[in-house]
């Protein structure tokens, strides 16, 4: 099984996004390096807009992650409510 990952700039804007991902993906592991936070998960990782909205306390457009996204791996499925990274079908 291979890992998917997503990485963000480590700042106050990305913190609630990272926290949301960790809450929704129990197998996810978070690693910090200077300026960067990387989240690995086996095979699949889902980001839910609703979870982020609960964290930030305002409406959140999922595409806002572009402001702090650094890199990712895996196939992407995206709509207004979720972004999923996965390997295989």
């Amino acid at each position, binding site marked *: 099984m*291979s890992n998917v990952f997503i990485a963000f700039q480590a700042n106050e804007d990305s913190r609630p996004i990272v926290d949301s991902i960790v809450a929704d993906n129990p197998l996810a592991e978070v690693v910090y390096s200077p300026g960067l936070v990387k989240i690995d998960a086996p095979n699949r990782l889902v980001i839910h807009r609703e979870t982020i909205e609960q964290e930030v306390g305002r409406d959140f457009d999922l595409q806002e992650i572009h402001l702090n*996204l*650094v*890199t990712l*791996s895996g196939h992407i499925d995206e709509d*207004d409510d979720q972004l999923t990274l996965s*390997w295989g079908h």
Partner: protein
Amino acid sequence: MDAKVTNKKLGLKPRYQTMTRDLGWTTSYQYMDKVFPYDKYEGIKIHDWDNWEDPFRLTMEAYWKYQGEKEKKLYAVIDAFAQNNGQLGVADARYINALKLFVQGVSPLEYCAHRGFAHVGRHFTGVGARVAAQMQSIDELRHYQTQIHTISNYNKYFDGMHNSNHWFDRVWYLSVPKSFFEDAMSGGPFEFLVAISFSFEYVLTNLLFVPFMSGAAHNGDMSTVTFGFSAQSDESRHMTLGIECIKFLLEQDPANVPIVQRWIDKWFWRGYRLLTLVAMMQDYMLPKRVMSWKEAWEMYAESNGGALFKDLERYGIRPPKGWQDACEGKDHISHQAWNTFYTYNAAAPFHTWTPNPEEMDWLSEKYPDTFAQYYKPRFEYYGKKHQEGERFYNTTLPMLCQVCQIPMVFHEPGDPGSICYRETDHDGDKYHFCSDHCKEIFTNEPEKYVQAWLPVNQIYQGNCFPEGTDPTAPGFDPLAAVLDYYEMEVGRDNFDFADSQDRKNFREWNGGVEEEVSP
């Protein structure tokens, strides 16, 4: 009569479809094949463009909004950096030479990518692919501009950054990135996507960006870090285009598989060879080191690449042919490259130096099987000669590989004490290569590579002197004439860091204090 219209907002996928694909049409005044003349000749078969899944559905409205926000933040940081003399915060002025290499060799590639994606963004029949390429073209122009802006502050204070466009088209080592991208740009649109979107922007991208950006962070170069992070979110869109295009091509027709495989083989190897410059930068040009090239290769190529090619097995794709040799090279290429630039520093507009004893210890630790055995003796010797006032500069032009255009510095796989020589005869002439893989790239498309503008060969043809030069005049110095043609400031842009104006200036600006520099 007013009918009450339900104002329901379209979801992301239909919204994106409406604003992009649905704006395309099948032409009726001209045949589609005439309007899009380039997307069949490569032999790639596309049966249904509707199966193209848009990577990252950013409509233009969302694009401008988020890119605009990123730009505001980035330029605020660049301004602050300039106002606060951020260039003094750099730990060691040797680091600036990594930036010189970047603006000379990487930034022009952003511009090439801008042009290349603009071109393919016109030539696919599929609207989804055209839109994705057009947006990437704007991203790449943004990268070129933001890199120039970021580095422009350093240009006010350090040598070697003022003439990069002129150098890109002429200076010997810059033909390596130039020929890489021109090879891609002169291929068809599908090859361009596999070469750049997939092989470069997906498979190898982290090996370019992470070393430069984390190197910048560790060495106090905050404006480059900021640029890097600002660009990286664009890069993640590019990555998704790369993975989508490979999936799409492989799923459209089994006949595409061998064509795509050949391109993956070619472009993995060309990209790997291009990364030689990054490997050297990472191991030798960062006074505060992050991780070794070997470690970066193991993390970003071997682990990630392993996962990726496992996923592509189901299409009948195997890992690239050069994979094993590239992995074997991880213990060597940075040292081989630094040795090249150290010894040819008379002709390169950035500074080099011998690693100090602490740095040699780090290199020995990170490369336990190779550094002390093959490379340390040379650097120790160079340090000794420099101290004796005889700093070694190689003054004989090197043999270049016909394809990657790098001097033939790479070793025979399995035999690190020996240079790898490969050759072939074509149309009455001999051609030479650094490896089996560059040779195979040549033999698959010889008509392309016999046209290569090889810097050394062009110098010997007399094509690299300033206009009006008379090579028959008494006292003519060809090497000096070449440096003139390069428009390098001899004695300022080139030669050892230890004796450079950069070093003198930086020491003065920091009140006469500096970190230990060899020799």
